[in-house]
């Protein structure tokens, strides 16, 4: 093991998190690693590097007693410091960690099917967890056949003295450290394979690109099972050697003020969240509460993991500049688990970049910059910053795999040591996603992100996605998952003739479901069916549906290979050209009734103008 450990802000010599934490425990045993904020506000005892290292060794020693090296272990925890120790413990034992959302009572309907499919996909044999989560899962073990075959370990029960029996497995940095299951549908989850090198290399990148230094303080509530929470939220502080205050995502959502209070109280410099979180602060925090905040210490307010609404950014800075929040603090970023985390971010101390482009040109994948104050035909896009260190980005035509012109929108391709090793045991999808080459220059291999965008003056802008993936509140939803749960509700709903897609309303992505109804289904209570659909989606997928259309057969088009053409369906919805049986939408402008009324008014107006001329 290399013993040289430099101070914050510079690259460490360690090649794995194991070496890193071991060295910190020796050189700064009492250094402040993490504090958990109980209920989002009461600080726990600080966890030191020495204590974290000891816990990790004890957990690892236990895993070694079971001969678990190379096995996959689920991490099922409430947000907190235990899961950080379990993650490090797995790595210390050469066990591949799988951070996943813990099941919760009352939400098992959503969490259990996904958990099961991950267990099956990864062939996970171990679960590190708490007593209460274990008991909860035990209550549904009949629906979880893999339960009995797995070894369940309540890490709180592990004797810390076991730490002395740990033997360093001398893990090579090219070995897998963890699997990140953020992509893939519920039915076919895809585990992104990250090595020790990916993680430590990327931590170094973020240290540079996000401007971490010896005075940094992290505050994070992003969940440990999300790449943003795990990598930048929890691992970068360990890498950079600065304290990290961890909150539960629930404590944030319940009271967004908790987040900003912690930044105030601990002089947080780095804290990240998706767009919706900044919006939630605007909606929930009162003017009087703003007066007690001081956000002047906040240097990098990371903003990624879902499309960024520039209006939310503008309103946030307008509102919170009263308590010291600076426009320069916003750090819009772009990334994905397949690249460990970030590919671009806004450099510290510079202003975020907003760009006004012509919408008509954008629809043809052309970038035409225009005047932001124009009232029509202009789209304001928030830039996602510049390339993280030496990350290579190509904008490629997704159909021809050739490099796009300067003012052309194309698919974002990434080449970097941060790029993951592929998807766990899925060679075909791995090849298609991770091994793309530019046809014209033969450069590669690139990671295909599936996201569309362009680079303008060194700044990356995201414009949409090739895949039909729906991202709402930072969570990816696969349309087929939603379509299938709808079709199971009622025999009159045609199997494989539904389309779930998102539309943008007031800068926010919202879910719309169009479902064909069987011709011979007779009388159905459409109001009831629509209510059932909304309830099912809220329960299974935890999304509020924006609009539901029960359509006549013939509305859902398929490609020759039988793929549902969701885009075409979306266009029909937006232009009001679906033939509907019944529909409902939160915004009545999209409902048939409104449209026919509007149509009448328009044709009347047209008649009036034509008669005049």
């Amino acid at each position, binding site marked *: 093991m290399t013993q040289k450990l430099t101070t914050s802000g510079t690259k460490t010599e360690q090649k794995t998190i194991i070496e890193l934490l071991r060295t910190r425990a020796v050189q700064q045993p009492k250094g402040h690693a993490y504090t958990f904020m109980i*209920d989002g506000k009461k600080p726990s005892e600080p966890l030191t590097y020495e204590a974290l290292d000891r816990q990790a060794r004890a957990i690892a020693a236990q895993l070694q007693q079971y001969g678990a090296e190379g096995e996959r272990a689920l991490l099922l925890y409430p947000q907190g410091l235990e899961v950080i120790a379990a993650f490090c413990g797995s790595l210390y034992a050469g066990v591949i960690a799988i951070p996943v959302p813990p099941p*919760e*009572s*009352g*939400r098992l309907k959503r969490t259990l099917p996904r958990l099961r499919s991950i267990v099956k996909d990864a062939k996970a044999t171990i679960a590190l967890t708490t007593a209460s989560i274990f008991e909860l899962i035990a209550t549904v073990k009949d629906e979880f056949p893999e339960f009995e075959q797995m070894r369940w370990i309540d890490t709180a029960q592990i004797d810390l003295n076991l730490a002395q029996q740990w033997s360093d497995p001398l893990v090579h940095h090219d070995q897998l450290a963890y699997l990140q299951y953020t992509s893939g549908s519920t039915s076919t989850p895809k585990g992104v394979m990250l090595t020790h090198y990916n993680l430590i290399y990327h931590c170094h990148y973020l240290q540079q690109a996000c401007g971490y230094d010896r005075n940094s303080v992290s505050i994070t509530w992003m969940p440990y099972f999300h790449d943003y929470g795990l990598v930048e939220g929890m691992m970068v502080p360990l890498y950079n050697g600065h304290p990290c205050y961890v909150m*539960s995502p*629930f*404590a944030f*959502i*319940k*009271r967004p003020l908790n987040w900003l209070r912690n930044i105030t109280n601990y002089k947080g410099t780095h804290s990240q969240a998706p767009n*919706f979180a900044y919006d*939630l602060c605007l909606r*929930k925090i*009162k*003017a*009087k*509460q*703003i*007066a*007690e905040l001081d956000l002047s210490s906040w240097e990098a307010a990371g903003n990624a993991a879902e499309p960024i609404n*520039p209006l939310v*950014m*503008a309103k946030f*800075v*307008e*509102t919170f*500049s*009263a*308590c010291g929040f600076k*426009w320069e603090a916003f750090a819009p970023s772009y990334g994905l688990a397949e690249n460990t985390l970030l590919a671009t971010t806004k450099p510290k*101390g*510079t*202003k*975020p*970049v*907003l760009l*006004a482009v012509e919408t008509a040109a954008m629809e043809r994948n052309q970038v035409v910059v225009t005047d*932001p*104050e124009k009232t029509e035909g202009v789209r*304001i896009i928030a830039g996602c910053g510049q390339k993280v260190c030496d990350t290579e980005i190509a904008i490629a035509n997704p159909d021809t795999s050739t490099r796009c012109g300067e003012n052309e929108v194309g698919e974002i391709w990434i080449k970097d040591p941060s790029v993951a090793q592929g998807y766990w045991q899925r060679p075909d999808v791995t090849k298609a996603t991770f091994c793309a080459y530019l046809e014209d220059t033969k450069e590669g291999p690139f990671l295909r992100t599936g996201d569309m965008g362009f680079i303008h003056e060194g700044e990356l802008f995201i414009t949409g996605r090739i895949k039909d993936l729906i991202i709402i*509140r930072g969570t990816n939803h696969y349309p087929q998952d939603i379509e299938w749960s709808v079709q199971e509700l009622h025999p009159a709903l045609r199997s494989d003739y539904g389309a779930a897609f998102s539309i943008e309303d007031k800068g926010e992505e919202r879910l719309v479901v169009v479902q064909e109804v069987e011709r011979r289904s007779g009388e159905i209570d459409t109001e009831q069916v629509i*209510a059932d659909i*909304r*309830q099912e*989606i*809220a*329960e299974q997928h*935890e*999304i*509020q*549906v924006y609009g539901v259309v029960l359509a006549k057969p013939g509305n859902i088009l398929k490609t020759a290979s039988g793929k549902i053409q969701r885009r075409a369906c979306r266009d029909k919805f937006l232009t009001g050209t679906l033939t509907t049986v019944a529909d409902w939408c*939160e915004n009545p402008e999209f409902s048939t009734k409104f449209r026919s009324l509007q149509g009448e008014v328009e044709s009347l107006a047209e008649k009036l103008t034509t008669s005049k001329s």
Partner: protein
Amino acid sequence: MSNLSMSNQTVVENWLKSQLAEQLSLDADSINVSEPLTRYGLDSIDAVTMVGDIEDVIDEELPSTLFWDYPTIAKSAQFLADNYDVSALGKTTSEPIEELEDTAIATATPAKTKSKGWGGLFGRGA
């Protein structure tokens, strides 16, 4: 409490109904207290947000999972009425206690308003 005409449970139910109606743009009268909240499209983030709203009014720490553990208005209202002092929910409809208490901080800086649309946010500079 002199007003005993309404049971605590009803007080909570009414409060939750109006809150849900506001959050999801529904007509409060159309909400059935025995239907699962998810029926009205309440998603997980809104559900936890609503717990925070109740906390603000009754000034107590509540479980974030309240609306998963008690998934209808009737059930959650009963849980709240049985375990907490919910009288504050009957007094005010939406004004949180915290706000009423600290009126002393009258100097609270109001949010700056900018009328020029995107104003100074366009343009780059270190």
